[in-house]
């Protein structure tokens, strides 16, 4: 019986798990290995004698050096960080207050307003960038970080609001009532009690918003044009693919360096983030 169980465990658990792991992690592995392979190996034809696509014996930092010396990668990184942080901050502030209001205050049309905000999140960016481009031009914001800082909230605020609404609904109403009996105004009860209790939810909303704006592509492609203003996703793809020539080494190195901050943000907050997703508030 126990042997049978072991056999089952391998077939139904470990082997599928291994398959999934390989499937999910292989692209990442490919990115890492390509970033450190010398060009000689990268462009070697598949039928040559020493063709070995999965490993290298001569790792090199040339591609990373190339990124920082021959391209504006450092400014792209800075631009992306600045834009992502600013738009996340704006969206979080608006989303937290809007989410609180929609979940706790009873005012006419609160329900339909909540649904309306969710629907704006469903409008595809590929449609929205056309009117937004017009607005950006009219306000002379084109080719500045502000063109993105002010447009990213169009999809980040609905997202944060919706997430925070759900989270605030999970915070027991009695906490706030008790605070109000204790002598706090509604505003004080929110600042001292409800928001601190909702910190895990705010963190998860923040991480999601940060990731969304870090990886955003289409607005950045449309609203920014000079190389020094670009963000990492746009900079890497527009400056390292020239015509039909792909500079695979620097491309992958750029992708690797670009994904590190997001990975760090995730792992740093992962504990809060998970409890935020599962929405656990214990009284």
């Amino acid at each position, binding site marked *: 019986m126990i042997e049978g169980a072991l056999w089952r465990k391998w077939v139904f658990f470990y082997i599928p798990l291994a398959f999934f792991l390989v499937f999910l992690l292989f692209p990442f592995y490919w990115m890492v290995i390509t970033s450190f392979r010398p060009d000689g190996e990268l462009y070697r034809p598949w039928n040559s004698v020493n063709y070995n696509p999965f490993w290298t014996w001569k790792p090199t930092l040339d591609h990373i050096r190339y990124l920082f010396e021959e391209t504006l990668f450092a400014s792209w990184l800075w631009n992306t960080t600045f834009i992502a942080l600013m738009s996340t901050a704006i969206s979080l502030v608006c989303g937290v207050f809007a989410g609180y209001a929609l979940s706790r205050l009873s005012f006419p049309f609160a329900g339909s307003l909540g649904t309306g905000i969710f629907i704006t999140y469903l409008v595809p960016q590929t449609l929205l960038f056309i009117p937004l481009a017009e607005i950006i031009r009219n306000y002379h914001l084109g080719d500045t970080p502000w063109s993105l800082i002010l447009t990213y909230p169009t999809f980040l605020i609905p997202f944060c609001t919706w997430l925070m609404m759900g989270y605030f609904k999970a915070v*027991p109403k*009695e*906490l706030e009532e*008790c*605070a109000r*009996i204790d*002598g706090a105004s509604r505003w004080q009860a929110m600042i001292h009690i409800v928001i601190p*209790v909702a910190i895990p939810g705010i963190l998860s909303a923040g991480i999601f918003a940060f990731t969304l704006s870090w990886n955003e592509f289409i607005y950045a492609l449309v609203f920014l044009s000079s190389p020094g203003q670009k963000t990492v996703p746009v900079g890497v793809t527009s400056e390292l693919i020239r015509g039909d020539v792909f500079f695979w080494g620097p491309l992958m190195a750029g992708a690797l360096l670009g994904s590190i901050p997001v990975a760090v943000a995730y792992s740093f907050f992962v504990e809060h983030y998970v409890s935020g997703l599962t929405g656990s508030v214990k009284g």
Partner: protein
Amino acid sequence: MSQVIIRNANKKFGDVHAVKDVNLQIRDQEFMVFVGPSGCGKTTTLRMVAGLEAITSGDILIGDRVVNELPPMDRDIAMVFQNYALYPHMSVYDNMAFGLKMRKFDRAEIAARVKRAAEILDIGALLERKPRQLSGGQRQRVALGRAIVRDPKVFLFDEPLSNLDAKLRVQMRSEIRKLHRRLSATSVFVTHDQVEAMTLADRLVVMNGGRVEQVGTPAEVYSRPASRFVATFVGAPAMNMLEGTVTLDGLSLLGDSRKLNVSRTGLAVGAKVAVGIRPEAVRMVAPGTPGALAATVDLIEELGAGRVIYVDLDGAPFSIVTSETVHPEPGSTVGLQFAERDLHFFSAETGGRLDVFKASVPEPAL
């Protein structure tokens, strides 16, 4: 003086009339308990006193002041919630100090008050802990502590014991009683548990369907229930009820299958009534005893000190509480006897009490 007066209070949630014309006077230093089944409006009434629900019509006075429009923070009340509502991100000390900080007490005064409350409740060692590190009973104490540090005019308790296990509940019950004796503050306590209500209350308010059914001391409510609802709600096991008609020489019960001789009912012959008898007022006698009702034994619940015997009167359930060492066999026939003064009469239509033996019913002695 901090009495609470509720005058013609009504509460409507849309089409639902949750509280109907409630009139109450809670005296200074009194421990008043609202009791009733869920949905009877007791919690809503409490929340109206707290200011957490607006009053649809009527007045609520705390002290001598109408507080209808006053926000909760200005009513000088403290409330203990069913789920304790401790602030999870604050230590026990900060939980207790929060209300004082909001009211701008100075640090030394806050520290002194928290320390004193912690001593009263025996939670001095827990002040640095977070609520999630406490047991249910400890959380309950912190919630009480948070209420008493403020020294409010009125304490409001919203089913604070129902999340505790049975043993702890009994213990906290007596502690709340002692605490009230020590602080002698006006208190309103909401519960659905009639034992809790009887043991804690100076006076009880029995509510049903948004209305007040009876107000009185536990002894009054027990011995002279004002309605059929109160009679069956207060006391465990519940009061036995038999439907019947008044006849010339007494009562005809259960569709004429049983006769009961009652010397004088004072009721019109032919009137439909419900007769109530407390299980503890029933005596079991040999079957066939003159004047006794015949019944079949269904089930016996042993309680150690006594036993509850469930019998069947032609389908009508009936229970007897006895401390005598009798163990009738299930299925056997027994006779039931009771004194006339232990009978309670209620109108079959309205459920209201019919006071036929007013003169002979002794004033409550409990």
